[in-house]
């Protein structure tokens, strides 16, 4: 503290660092998988060292082609996407994408998925000894092709089975990303926690659909897609709030965050960190602005450490 015009002024900057499952993040802001490519796409616009963590596009054992086009369409304050998890596959990622990310000091969290339990296990095992991989984020919103296409994350027993198998193969911090397309998300949250998840991130996109009324065709080639963007934020805040109440592991909040005040809603209901998704498309510098504004908010509110704000909902 020092005196300026008779008023006491804080000269120390508020602390933004948070820790999740042993991962030390310099601030609670990271990209949501699938909206930040492999990091290199955004490097011309944003210093990746500023980020709390870097989260990669979802990776699978083999390269994946993705869906036919149109793959995206805009909706009111949001967008639908059905990209179909197009990705280069885990080997190409390790060889050609990871060395680029490894130059940065922000921890790299590799998002991955599978269409069978075995695929999940194999990808996790393959990432175990890759230099620079700080943690894993597991997308369980995929259909299990061996079980009639039922989505792993919509069935507590399936979610539990796949997470516990992956858990056996990885010593890295394991974040499980939940789908909101369930009756009671607390049930799947509890199931993955019991199966060994170190942290939980939510929400993945909400399923949605839009129709071109002149052609009477769905606006996505895949008919159904995932809704993201500001439109889903109140739903995401509610779900994060419910999951924070239900589990003990740290929670990462995702859903329609494009400004610091959006991120703060999630932190206040108890998320230890947040992911920014669709906003990266709108403004490639969105996360840097959010980090700056979080610091300014803490400064203005007299909060020395952002951890003092987390989970302080007055309800």
């Amino acid at each position, binding site marked *: 503290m020092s005196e300026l015009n008779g008023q006491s002024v804080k000269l120390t900057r508020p602390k933004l660092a948070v820790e999740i499952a042993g991962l030390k993040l310099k601030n609670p802001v990271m990209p949501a998988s699938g*909206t930040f490519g492999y990091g290199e*796409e955004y490097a011309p*616009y944003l210093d990746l060292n500023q980020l709390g963590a870097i989260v990669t596009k979802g990776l699978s054992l083999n390269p994946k082609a993705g869906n*036919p*086009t149109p793959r*995206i369409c805009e909706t*009111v304050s949001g967008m639908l996407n059905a990209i179909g998890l197009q990705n280069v596959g885990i080997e190409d990622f390790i060889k050609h994408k990871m060395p680029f990310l490894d130059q940065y000091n922000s921890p790299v969290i590799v998002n991955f998925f599978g269409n069978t339990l075995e695929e999940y296990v194999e990808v996790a095992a393959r990432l175990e000894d890759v230099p620079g991989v700080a943690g894993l984020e597991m997308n369980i919103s995929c259909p299990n092709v061996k079980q009639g296409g039922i989505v792993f994350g919509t069935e507590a027993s399936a979610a539990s089975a796949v997470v516990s198998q992956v858990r056996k193969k990885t010593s890295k911090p394991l974040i499980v990303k939940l789908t909101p397309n369930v009756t009671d998300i607390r049930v799947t949250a509890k199931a993955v926690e019991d199966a060994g998840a170190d942290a939980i991130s939510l929400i993945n996109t909400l399923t949605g659909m839009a129709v071109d009324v002149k052609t009477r065709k769905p606006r996505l080639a895949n008919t159904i897609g995932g809704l993201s963007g500001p439109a889903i934020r109140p739903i995401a805040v509610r779900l994060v709030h419910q999951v924070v109440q239900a589990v003990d592991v740290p929670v990462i909040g995702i859903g329609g965050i494009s400004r610091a005040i959006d991120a703060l809603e999630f932190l206040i209901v108890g998320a230890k960190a947040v992911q920014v998704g669709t906003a990266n*498309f709108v*403004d490639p510098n969105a996360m840097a602005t959010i980090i700056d504004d979080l610091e300014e908010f803490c400064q203005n509110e007299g909060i020395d450490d952002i951890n003092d704000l987390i989970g302080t909902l007055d309800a």
Partner: protein
Amino acid sequence: MKNHKTIILSNQEISPGYYRMRILAPEYNKLAQPGQFVMFRVQRSLPPLLRRPFGIFRVGYAAPDCDGMPQKEFVELIYKVVGSGTEIMQDLHQGDRVELLGPLGRGFDLGDPDEEKILVGGGIGLVPLYMLAEKLVANSNVRLLMGGRTRDDIITVTEFERLGVGTYVSTEDGSLGEEGLVTQVLERKLKKYPNAQVYACGPMPMIDAVQKICAAHSTPLQVSLEALMACGVGACLGCVVKGAGHSEENPQYLCTCKQGPVFQAEQLDWNRLENQSGDCGGCGV
């Protein structure tokens, strides 16, 4: 490539439904290449949520507001009002705050100076061809074949003429120039000028027809594609098109934003192209 928070210098209707917007844009004269595009956003506005891709019409310098001030560097976009985003754009005025991400994407290859250059533009697809023509006229004979549904769709042709480009206009209803499709003019020109390179931008059925004609004449072709895109930088993978080597087993998707928007015809899978979206009604969803 950079994100500029900047202002509009002017925004005028140049033909029914078509607007020309001039935006203050430092460095664009140095950076922008023919065929590149920008991702445009109205500052502090929601909706529309996503930026819109627009081909660069031209770049230049405008006179300063008063003597002694530096000239104002600008970029010009031409857009057609087709949806919610462009409806908002048409009401913008001088001084309104906007954001420009760009210049983005891979532009046109200028090719061999000895070839005849034939540019084929359909409606709003004409836009990226202007900067190309500016560059090509220095070393080559350049002809523009401009097609539209009606005379309202024929825009900026006199500006091409001022560059020294030979222009040939056709409209489907015959309200201006020759009656019929631009592709029938192309057929004739290719017979007359066998040593040509063709550059095309327009609606997908036109591009598809141009490809068939050029393939039949073994004429090299570059096309500029339109696509729905969310990011413009290769991250969202919303704007992909199938590449020439594409198969179900060995998929090859190319990002229109990053590997395009200009492609050599042989890079693409033309059997599948016509069924692909790419149609955002003139880059303005």
